């Protein structure tokens, strides 16, 4: 059973969109950004966020880089690649198509 706030396949889209607006974020910041910008409605689970990040990295949409934080601990910063920009455009239009289709259904029934 998916939880009510689960992202249902839109996680990739959200991550790509956030990274397109604010380059170089680490995992926790991406999670916070999803939570904050959605008005605390959407929540990315740690358990799904990181495998998704690693998968997108392998796919070449995002790239990662280690930086050293003030605390001395290293963090992994992600940013969009050109391939990721194209992917974002594709995902966005796919999402628009899906939501407008869903809206049409809601209006007519």
């Amino acid at each position: 059973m998916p939880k009510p706030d689960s992202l249902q396949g839109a996680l990739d889209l959200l991550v790509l969109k956030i990274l397109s607006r604010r380059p170089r974020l680490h995992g926790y910041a991406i999670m916070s950004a999803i939570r904050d910008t959605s008005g605390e409605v959407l929540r990315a689970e740690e358990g799904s966020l990181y495998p998704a990040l690693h998968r997108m990295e392998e796919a070449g949409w995002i790239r990662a880089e280690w930086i050293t934080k003030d605390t001395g601990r290293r963090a992994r910063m992600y940013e969009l690649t050109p391939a990721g920009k194209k992917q974002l455009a594709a995902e966005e239009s796919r999402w628009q198509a899906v939501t407008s289709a869903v809206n049409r259904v809601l209006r007519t029934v």
Partner: protein
Amino acid sequence: MSLWSRISNVLRGDRLSREIDEEMASHIEDAIAEGRDPAEARRAFGSALQRREESRDVRLIVWLDSLRADAVFGWRQLLKKKATSAAAILSLALAIGACTSAFRLIDALLLRPLPVTHPEQLYNLDRQGIGVNGKFETYDAWAYPAFRLMRAAVKDQADLIAISYPLRVDLTYQSDQEMEKAYLQYVSGWMFRSFGLRPALGRLLTEDDDLTQGTHPYAVLSYDYWTQRFGRDPRVIGRPLRLGGDTFQIIGVCGEAFTGTEPGTVIDIFVPTMMTSKVNRSDQTWIRTLARLRPGVAMEPVRAKLHATSRAFEEERMSGITNMTKRTRDDFLNQTLVLEPAAAGASGLQKDYRRSLLALGLLVVLVLLIACANVANLMTAQAAARAREMALRVSIGAGRWRLVQLVLVESAMLACLAAAVGGMFAWWSAPFVAGRINSPGMRVHLILPMDWRVAGFGLALTLGVTILFGLGPALRASAIKPASALKGGEDPHSRRRLMHALIAGQVAFCFLVLFLAGLFAATFERISNRPMGFSAERLLVLDAIPARPQSPVAWEQVAEHLRQTPGVEKVALAGWPIFSRNSMNNFVSINGAPPGPVLAYYLNVSPGWTNVMKLALLDGRDFRATDTNPGAAIVNESFARQFFNGENPVGKTFERVRGRFYQIVGLVRDAPYRSLREPIYPVAYVPFQTVDDHGALQPIGYGAFIVRTSSANPLALASTLRKEVPRARSEFRVSNIGTQEELNRGQTIRERLLAMLAMFFAGVALLLAGIGLYGVLDYGVLQRRREIGIRMAIGAQAGDIARRVTVDVFRMVVAGAAAGLALGMASVRYIEALLYEVKTTEPAMLAIPALTILAAALLTAMPAVIRAVRIDPVAMLRSE
């Protein structure tokens, strides 16, 4: 980039895991900094291990990673037991190397297709049936006129090519004083076009060069010879080459890959068949005939047509021959012509060594099976020791296939290491063995490349071996039931049963190897101890060729000159030495009766020859200087038995064909003639000096000086005598010099080689089987030490314990030996042709392997028995 990064991530898996952990730790730290509850933040990740695995799996290739993990683990396992691993690898390496080596030899001699277009279309024309010697034989020698008729008969269905046997000739590129040796072959001019060969330089022979006799004195060199003799000098074209009385002109060099159609001999020079007078002789068979069937032509009609043509030719020829019995003639005419596939060429070496090499192949495969059984036993014992580890793996979720993979990877590592070492062994040993086949006057040159064929064989062998010894233990290990294994109560007998079956197999193969080795060794021993009738000690043989045939007087002058040379005791002349490849035979007629079916063999010798050879004169006298051929003869015992019913033949006469009469002046002891493997033939020794019908002495074109030297090493005189011959008479030249001992040894090369290799592999097989037996017994004692401890505590005697730990295994040894015996009896049919006067049913042939195996079994059982009876019941039970 993605695939590459995933492959490279496999190789840095530890770092990957560390990075994933670090990223998560960083995340948790941020979460705590934002004021989340540390425990809750950690819990949000769920099972950290599972998260890590998930992330890992997207970033690398899972199966490759598991393979890598297994390889690392397997390597550690191998290192952990260095001694046993090394023993397993070395025994496997020896076996794999020996198999690869045997394959290289078999491939080079029998399988490798000739480097010509469509070698699969090539056939060699053989005749099979009862030969003039009254025995079934297969031979492929043809007379040129027969070839010409056959070629014309099938010219629309097949292309026939005449190729002479390779000749070791004396030739010169300068003066007669600088003669050298080369392998020369007379070939049909159209051979090169038919084979699709291209010249490396100049041009090749064509059909036009081979149509009229004696008009196209052209020679083509092989690439190998051009390289060795001329350093690839392009100015070689047009150079003259003197051979006998003829001068040839070099017109080209053949492309690199083609070295002739005779595996075992690399041809140096090709000349047209039309350049020898033998092309018109119906009674001289000196060529092989290769047929290349045209595409789409059925074989049988072609064969039938060739057979009919050949038979018609022989019938025509036989009508002019009167000294043959009807039976002999009918048998000869009834021989059938067969087409033998000749994609790999056709050579005498193939004929001589086909069975030997296959027998050798059988031996090495048996040794390989023994080695595999050993390693399988080792792996099974290890799997037993690792039963708990396997059970643990299963209980934390390892699949059955994953465990099979784990054990198989370990096996494959063993096999690969063994294959690497074995490859080096094969690289060295195949040329080593090939080098042992050289006989005097016949330099064997097998081309033994290490190419994709050999590599492919090695790879397939390694894979096969892995499956053979790895799959059983792997399946067994994976079938583990965690509950029973963790309790330590798995049925130990089932595992022992597998090991015992392997022991029985090992013993069976070992028995077979020992049995065959015993047969080969006995063959060699008997053939080399065969009574010779003459003494080869201190004998030097000088083959001489004068520039032109010389009168017997001139030959005798040279012999006399040699007698004056210091270090020489005695000198005699002969047409050729005993055990040279030459022979001359004919039917014999006694008292004018029609000739019988048995051939007599002839050898021309000078007075004193029997004395030099120390061939015992049983009756009569030696030749005198006045005896001539025809006229007088000395015969051997077999001749007297065959033609005079064993009566003393001295003083009697016989007729060799067409009115050549001989009076027998002496009787000598039987001695071999051409080959040690053949029975003793009826032989008539006739005088060296031959006269024609008018009593005039005939000039002689070649002969041999047989020299008995006074020094123990006759070769010390070789270079002196080589110089003395032309000093005596300048027309004479020594073409070849060697000892009679070498010729004698040349007769047993095959037997010596087979015996040597078979004994070697018998030793290896015995050692491996012994190690296997030791391992299994030792393992058995280890497994049953609790039981043995209890038995001893309640008063079992040492003898009883010893019996208990060995009885099962000994039952297996006996069963294995019996199976080996049966295998031996079944296989002996195929190797009978390789044996000489050895009966496979001789008690010694069976008893020796049986006793050897029994002794080895007793010896290897000792340590395990001692270990068993030394078990201290108190210590044993306390440790439990």
